[in-house]
């Protein structure tokens, strides 16, 4: 006798979910046959504010698109405007931007590790990883003055300089964080109980990952070496790093890629501090932007596109953001097919969903 099909609504409010995504799970005997995702619960209309805010003030709004990758959103908007206005930021501004970008990436990945530990029910590991996230937040606070929203970006450079003594103080902190994450890594990548929840769960092949248009660590965990940082925006062209990939294609691979990227980010920060130029941080701007530009940058969750269309006025006509989570949702629906109902929370967490920035 064929098993009876039933639909389980999952989210938008769900104890294991940090983000308001709704998925209708069509199940057959505890197995998910089909997953139908739907989003649109926290739309705030931030993109439309671009027509009501001065283009310089809009940086604050862009930063508030997301609370975790806030620096990246500010950077993407500022980068697009700078290309429209033909402004080349100074070397020091570029290096500090790269450094803060990598700190945000560390912060986001460590946060994700904690959420992952929470999803498979390892509470003490969750608290341990967030202890190190706190150290990263402290570094961000020392550098910019804010823990979540940094308000340091400005069209033409930075609003304030980060002194060299604060930057050199980051080096011992980075060592401590790296040491702590190495201790946690053992639990994530070699603990049999954890491996039982991760290995082989939510497999996505390389072909499917490319076909479904995945982004970021989710894509790299399926063995596709694509990282927008390699395009060399900000000061990434001066940095020495490789794309981290994994051939596993499952939740374990995604965990591995993100842990390795934390070490990679720490290395890039060290390189930034070592090569930091001395010159100024700000180039004065003249007039209003006129033209359009589309830029793509690598957020912690993957590539994010920013489109800005300006018409030589104080207010910009159109701004559009495509976030990595939006690109990863089709692949999430694909990986959910055939998994156990108990694995659904883990799989949703493996794409590192950020629904607030997807809906803006």
């Amino acid at each position, binding site marked *: 006798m064929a098993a009876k099909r039933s639909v389980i609504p999952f989210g938008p409010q769900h104890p294991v979910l940090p983000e308001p995504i709704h998925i209708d799970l069509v199940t057959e005997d505890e197995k998910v046959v089909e997953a139908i995702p739907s989003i649109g619960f926290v739309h705030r209309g931030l993109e439309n504010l671009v027509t009501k805010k001065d283009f310089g003030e809009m940086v*604050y709004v862009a930063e508030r698109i997301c609370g975790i990758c806030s620096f990246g959103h500010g950077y993407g908007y500022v980068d697009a405007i700078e290309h429209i206005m033909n402004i080349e930021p100074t070397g020091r501004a570029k290096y500090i931007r790269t450094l803060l970008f990598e700190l945000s990436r560390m912060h986001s990945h460590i946060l994700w590790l904690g959420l992952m530990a929470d999803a498979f029910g390892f509470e*003490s590991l969750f608290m*341990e990883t967030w202890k190190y996230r706190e150290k990263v937040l*402290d570094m961000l606070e020392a550098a*910019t003055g804010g823990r979540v*929203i940094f308000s340091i970006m400005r069209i033409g450079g930075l*609003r304030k300089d980060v002194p060299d003594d604060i930057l050199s103080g980051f080096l011992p902190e980075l060592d401590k964080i790296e040491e702590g994450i190495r201790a946690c890594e053992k*639990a994530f990548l070699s*603990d049999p109980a954890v491996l039982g929840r991760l290995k082989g769960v939510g497999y996505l092949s390389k072909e499917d990952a490319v076909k479904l248009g995945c982004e970021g660590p989710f894509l790299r965990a399926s063995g596709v070496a694509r990282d927008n940082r390699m395009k060399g925006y900000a000061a990434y062209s001066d940095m020495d790093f490789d794309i981290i990939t994994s051939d596993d294609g499952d939740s374990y691979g995604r965990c591995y890629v993100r842990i390795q990227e934390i070490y990679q980010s720490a290395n890039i920060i060290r390189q930034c501090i070592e090569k930091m130029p001395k010159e100024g941080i700000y180039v004065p701007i003249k007039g209003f932007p006129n033209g359009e530009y589309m830029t793509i940058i690598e957020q912690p969750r993957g590539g994010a596109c920013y489109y800005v269309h300006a018409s030589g006025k104080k207010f910009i006509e159109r701004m559009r953001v495509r976030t990595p989570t939006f690109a990863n949702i089709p692949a999430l629906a694909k990986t959910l097919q055939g998994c156990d109902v108990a694995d659904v929370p883990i799989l949703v967490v493996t794409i590192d969903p950020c629904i607030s920035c997807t809906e803006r």
Partner: protein
Amino acid sequence: MSLANFTKTEFKNLFRKPATEKYPDGPATYKDTTRGHIENNMDTCVLCSVCQMRCPTGAITVDRKAQTWSIRPFSCIQCRRCVDNCPKKSLSMAKEYTKPDVVKSQMDFELSDRQKAVLAEQARQAAERVAAAMEERKKAAASAKQTKDGEAKKSEDNKTQ
């Protein structure tokens, strides 16, 4: 693969001091650079309204008639734009975060008596200067008229001759 990987870390944590602060019981620690809340020195403020114009959320209101400077702390996003733009360096960023509240309050600050006296004195001097300038202009106009009248009279005399 090995068993009990995390046990070592867990045991270490048993004998370490807590990683968190006991905030409501003890004082919270802030970095030197933390952007907590805006403070205005009412001894140096000249109520120029630049902060009001620059504030991206409209949290600051300057009332020149009542000589008050008000901020709505729940609208303030701590972007530091007003502090950067203050011409008298009267505004500053303090480290502590705004205290929680049950209503979206507004905090009004009145100019200090000393600063009120300074502003009144400045206004008086400015008024004096304006009055003096007006007086001078009037005199100049009167003298110009006189000379013009004189010239006109002369030309009339010439005509009659």
